[in-house]
C-alpha cells in the first residue's frame, strides 16, 4: 500500500526536516516579495499606539519650510523649520545639521516651563522649556522623532504629541 493517503499519514508523523524548513523559507520569500508589508505601516502603528497610550492630543502641522536657499547642493547644510499647533499650544521646531551626522533640534513652545520629551526610535530624552518656552535637544540621530509636550502646571490638560519629524 502506497496510496497518497497512506504516504501522507507516514509523512505527517515524521519530524520536520531541513527540506520542510527550506520549503517554508521559500513560501516566506514568495509572500515577502509579492505581498510585502506596506512601507511605513509599522511607524504609523507605533505613532497611533503612542497617541492612544498617552491619551495625547495630536498637534497639526501648520507649516514646513526650508530656510536654505533652493540651490542645488550635495551638502546637507539645510536648516528646516516646522510649526505645529494644537488647542491652545503652538510648537516651532528648527533643525540644524551638526557634526558627524547628528542634528540639533531647537524648539519653542507657547507654554513656558513645559516638560518636553523627545522620542527617537530607540531612546527617549526629556528636558524642560525655559521661561520663554525655548528648549534644545542635541545629538539627535537620523530617523523619525516625535515631541511630547506636558504642561505640569495644568494637570488636567492632555499631553500634546507632534506628528513625525524627519531628522
Amino acid at each position, binding site marked *: 500500500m502506497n496510496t*497518497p493517503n497512506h*504516504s*501522507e*499519514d*507516514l*509523512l*505527517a*508523523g*515524521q*519530524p*520536520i*526536516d531541513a*527540506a*520542510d524548513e527550506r*520549503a*517554508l*523559507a*521559500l*513560501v*516566506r*520569500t*514568495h*509572500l*515577502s*516579495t*509579492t*505581498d*510585502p*508589508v*506596506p*512601507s511605513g*505601516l*509599522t511607524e*504609523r*502603528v*507605533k505613532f*497611533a*499606539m*503612542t497617541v*492612544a*497610550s498617552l491619551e495625547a492630543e495630536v498637534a497639526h502641522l501648520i507649516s514646513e519650510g526650508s530656510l536654505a536657499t533652493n540651490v542645488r547642493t550635495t551638502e546637507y547644510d539645510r536648516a528646516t523649520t516646522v510649526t505645529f499647533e494644537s488647542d491652545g499650544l503652538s510648537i516651532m521646531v528648527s533643525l540644524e545639521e551638526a557634526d558627524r551626522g547628528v542634528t540639533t533640534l531647537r524648539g519653542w513652545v507657547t507654554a513656558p516651563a513645559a516638560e518636553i520629551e523627545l*522620542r527617537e*526610535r*530607540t*531612546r*527617549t530624552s526629556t528636558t524642560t522649556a525655559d521661561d520663554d518656552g525655548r528648549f534644545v535637544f542635541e545629538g539627535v540621530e537620523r530617523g523619525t522623532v516625535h515631541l511630547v509636550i506636558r504642561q505640569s502646571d495644568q494637570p488636567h490638560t492632555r499631553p500634546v504629541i507632534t506628528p513625525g519629524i524627519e531628522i
Partner: protein
Amino acid sequence: MNSGLAAAAANAFSLHRSGDSSAMGALVDQVTPLLWHTARAQGADPATAEDVVQTTWLRLVEHAAEISDPQAVLQWLLMTTKRESWNAVRRGRRTIPRESWDEPTTSDTPPPTSGVDPALASEERELARAIWQHVERLPERCQQLLRLVAFVDRPDYSAVSEALGIPVGSIGPTRGRCLAKLRLALTADPAWEVTA
C-alpha cells in the same frame, strides 16, 4: 523558556506594563509582518489589512490591563487580527472575493513590481513562485497555516495553529497534515529534488 516570537512578545508586553515606553516599538516591528499575512490570508485586501493591523495594535493598548498572562499576547494579537479581518471581510467593505481552495486562484499574486529585494537571486524567486503554486492547491486551512508558519520559528508553531483554530499537534514537532501534503506535492513534482 523558548525563544520564539511568543516569548519576545511576552517580554515586551511585561516591560510595557511596567512603564517602558519603547518596549512595544520593537514588538511592533517583529510581529507586524505576521499580522499582515494573517489578515491577508483571511481574504482582506491591502487597504483593509492595513486597517486591521492598526486596529489590532490599538486594541492591545486598550485591553492591556485585561491580558493576565503575557505569554498569551502573541496568540491574542493573532486571534484579534483574525477576528477583525473576518468581520471586515464579511462586512464586504474594501475586500476582494476569495475563491474556494479547490479552485486555486493565481489572481491574488500580482507580479512583483515594487518592494522586491534586488539582492534576491531571480532563481530563488522562481523557486519561491513554484512552491507557492503547490501551496495554493492545498486546502484553505493548510494554506492559512503554512502562510503564517512561514513567518515564525518552531517555538511559535503552536501559538499560530491555535490562533487559527487548528488543533495543537497539527504542525510541530512532527510534520503534520499540511506540511505532509506539501511534501507529497513536491515529491511528485520533477522540478524538486525532494524525496518522501
